[in-house]
């Protein structure tokens, strides 16, 4: 649905790599274009009309993000360069200061690198311990297994809301209840969920949440860190410079700006913020529940069709989200991707930045289809037909 909003879809391609990045609707492209052609300025506090306008747009975007994820206030929204930046910011600028040797962080083997590697570094730097919550036979996180993994040293649970390969939706709300009873903080990577399902930080009661705009129809290079205000209050800035200080003097005295501005030193990614703001307008216009419903229908159709092909192995049948991980039996995933590319069908092959997942699913590399609401059943039919003819795969790619 809404295919007419995406100029990229006029280029005769079938795009099934939405978990990597999404196409941008005209509304977003135009919003960025307008900033560069109609009111370019830095975000000052209103020295002249355009700078005031940019400032208003910037603040308005922050409020829109807050409303979108139902944060208590826009002060809880920090703009970053993306989910990776957000997660690293939280790990190195908050947890590094409050965790001590022997403290444990619980995560899983199916996380994206950006929610694992920073914790590995803390393990080396300050002696925390990274532990893995056991996944069930469908590679999912269950509340029981979270409970089993918690001990007296557990201080943090760091998980994706939806994982980028298996794509299971984690019971974050219940995990937060469990965690908060024991004073454990919960850090959630929402990069894969934000554009596909309702993310309500107050309902989930997460402590920190990270996501990127480019996976939700917005531009690259801009993302969000949500933090509960009381936790952001405990944080120091990572960068110092313009925009984040209120007053400073030659003796080294610095008075910081309010939260969250103090965390955004230097000229920010204004076009990104404006693009993200437009992306939120766009998603809201369609309605996230309509998006979820349609994407689920598409996925069911895709699974049904793939299951009819006996030479296809599917790794995550039971989950209900946008990702389907599969392989043509006895064909290397990248060869499958190259074959599909001959028909302008874009899918991802590889380990999808989850390089330890192979320890769980015993397959190193998969093809991944990740859907969006602009995909259609016709596109799925085309994919299935091309797969049906894949006995000629090598003939076509060699």
């Amino acid at each position, binding site marked *: 649905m809404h295919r007419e909003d995406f100029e990229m879809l006029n280029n005769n391609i079938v795009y099934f790599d939405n978990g990597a990045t999404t196409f941008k609707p005209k509304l977003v492209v135009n919003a960025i274009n307008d900033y560069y052609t109609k009111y370019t300025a830095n975000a000052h506090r209103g020295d002249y009309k355009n700078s005031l306008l940019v400032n208003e747009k910037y603040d308005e975007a922050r409020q829109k993000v807050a409303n979108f994820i139902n944060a208590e206030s826009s002060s809880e929204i920090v703009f970053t360069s993306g989910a990776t930046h957000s997660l690293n910011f939280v790990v190195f600028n908050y947890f590094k200061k409050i965790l001590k040797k022997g403290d444990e962080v619980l995560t899983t083997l199916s996380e994206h690198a950006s929610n694992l590697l920073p914790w590995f570094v803390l393990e080396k730097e300050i002696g925390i311990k990274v532990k893995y919550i056991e996944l069930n036979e469908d590679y999912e996180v269950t509340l029981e297994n979270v409970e089993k993994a918690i001990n007296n040293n557990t201080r943090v649970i760091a998980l994706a809301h939806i994982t980028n390969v298996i794509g299971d939706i984690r019971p974050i709300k219940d995990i937060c209840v469990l965690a908060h009873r024991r004073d454990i903080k919960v850090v959630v990577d929402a990069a894969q969920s934000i554009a596909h399902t309702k993310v309500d930080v107050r309902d989930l009661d997460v402590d920190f949440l990270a996501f990127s705009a480019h996976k939700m129809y917005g531009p690259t290079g801009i993302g969000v860190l949500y933090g509960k205000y009381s936790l952001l209050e405990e944080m120091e800035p990572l960068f110092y410079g313009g925009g984040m200080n209120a007053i400073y003097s030659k003796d080294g005295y610095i008075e910081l700006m309010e939260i969250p501005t103090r965390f955004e030193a230097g000229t920010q990614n204004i076009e990104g913020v404006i693009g993200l703001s437009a992306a939120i307008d766009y998603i809201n216009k369609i309605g996230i529940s309509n998006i979820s419903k349609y994407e689920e229908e598409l996925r069911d159709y895709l699974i049904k069709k793939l299951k009819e092909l006996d030479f296809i192995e599917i790794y995550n049948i039971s989950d209900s989200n946008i990702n389907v991980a599969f392989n043509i039996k006895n064909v290397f995933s*990248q060869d499958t991707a190259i074959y599909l590319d001959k028909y302008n069908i874009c899918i991802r092959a590889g*380990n999808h930045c989850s390089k330890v997942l192979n320890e769980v699913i015993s397959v*190193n590399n998969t093809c991944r289809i990740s859907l969006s609401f602009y995909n259609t059943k016709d596109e799925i039919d085309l994919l299935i037909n091309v797969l049906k003819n894949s006995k000629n795969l090598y003939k076509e790619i060699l």
Partner: protein
Amino acid sequence: MDREEKRKIILDNYNDDINRKEISSSDYIKVNSRNFSCIDNIDLYIKFNNNIIDDIKFNGEACVIAISSTSLLIKYLIGKSVEEALNIISNYENMIDGLSYDQSIIKDLIAFDDIGKQPSRKICATLASRKIKELLEKSV
């Protein structure tokens, strides 16, 4: 050589697993070769007898181009002296890079001559040769 013949050579060597096995013997030197920009990842096991390459085996996961070129290249390298092997690799890599090469030295490896025209796949076709070359150059 027409496209069909090339394809046959590539597929025959892709499916030929005579040298495709994991080796645990300490007689072999193990090196890993991978392409970080894609997902090709193989281990190579090389056994020397003084200056002669006594045996090479490989194991791992990679695309058809990477596996097949590895499979065929090592067939040509087994039994050769280090200098001879380096000469084969050098001619093969020259072909991939579009430079001049001696076809009589690389024989059926000519099946991969089109790969050089796809820059993104050069790394697949040289997955084994790069690492073996590195190792051989050290031993010269």
